[in-house]
């Protein structure tokens, strides 16, 4: 691609640039529609039917139905748009953010109270911080 992307080497992070924006256009515009109370009610009443009104890919629709925000972001979603789904579900930003880390709500909240996630080991892909791919999923699943 022709866009210069110096931000590709940051682990666990997707920068919402023009390429992502293009990929996620209809997904994000669907999210915007949830800023109207009427639309939130219609979405809640029949999520699938509401999603089918939008020119989204089946993958995007499945990711929304599963509330898989990491997948939504991979498919072009942006967190400020996706937050409208969380708002519709009555979730806080902390619950939404935490849901992307593989940690339980409590684990994530505790991490934040203790000062948040450390940047050490999480600056560049290939270091050994907790946000690196080889430490996924974080939190509970120790097997």
């Amino acid at each position: 691609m022709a866009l210069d992307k110096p931000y590709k080497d940051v682990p666990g992070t997707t920068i919402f640039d023009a390429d992502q924006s293009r990929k996620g256009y209809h997904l994000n515009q669907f999210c915007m529609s949830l800023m109207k109370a009427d639309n939130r009610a219609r979405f809640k009443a029949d999520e699938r039917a509401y999603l089918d009104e939008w020119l989204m890919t089946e993958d995007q629709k499945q990711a929304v139905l599963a509330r898989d925000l990491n997948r939504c972001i991979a498919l072009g979603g942006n967190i400020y748009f996706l937050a409208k789904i969380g708002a519709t579900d009555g979730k806080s930003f902390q619950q939404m953010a935490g849901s992307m880390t593989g940690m339980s709500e409590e684990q994530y909240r505790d991490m934040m109270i203790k000062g948040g996630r450390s940047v050490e080991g999480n600056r560049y892909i290939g270091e050994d911080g907790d946000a690196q791919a080889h430490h996924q999923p974080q939190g509970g699943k120790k097997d």
Partner: protein
Amino acid sequence: MAKITASVYTSHVPAIGAAIDTGKTTDPYWVPLFKGYEPSRSWMEASKPDVIFLVYNDHATAFSLEMIPTFAIGCAAEFKPADEGYGPRPVPTVIGHPELASHIAQSVIQDDFDLTIVNKMDVDHGLTVPLNLLCGSPDAWPCPVIPFAVNVVQYPVPSGRRCYNLGKAIRKAIESYDEALKVQIWGTGGMSHQLQGPRAGLINREWDNAWLDTLIADPEAAAAVPHIDYVREAGSEGIELVMWLIARGAMDDVAGGPAPKLAHRFYHVPASNTGVGHLILENQ
């Protein structure tokens, strides 16, 4: 002539708004945060401006992906609190200052800043939470507010240097307005936070505080920080800090005047996902 009396900087976390709206400000979790803004509210009452020029970012609220302005100035007579998905916040309608806003728009566009002029817009937590933090929860905000929205959602976002230079142009515009108004300029958003992906929850207390030091004492250096440093050190949403540079660039010292007085400084972790920073700088 109008005069910039002070600049105010603060994070604008939505959870702070939710804590206010649901009466949780005295919960142990929130007490330290609101305590940090108590001196600011006293200061604000003692230093009431005639107008606040409030730099913030829209969080996919007024601006969808249909149109994404890099810089948008609100020239309307009023701006309603937006429904961000939870219903509109129960805060007062924001009263604008169309005359001063239009004057600033004319001046800075002629100074080669390519603003988008907005005459109809709802405002989200990015604008209303800072007003609550400094003004409490009154029936009406204490003065007119000019909303100035910066794109920090879709890349490319404006550089720190561009924001800083815009601050200089806004200062020039305000100081050429022919009414003796006391104007405050606010920069909001940040500090370190990341709301997405496996790296969500990143906070960098050391970096945040070093950046505050630099912003106060050496704003040129703060303006030179490239985007990638914000992302790497302060999380993907830490990029919001470029908005603080607009307010900082509008201060007297940048135009050759005396250094500003640091009236208040506060830092607290966490508010929800975010490292909260706050400064008040007064022109001397």
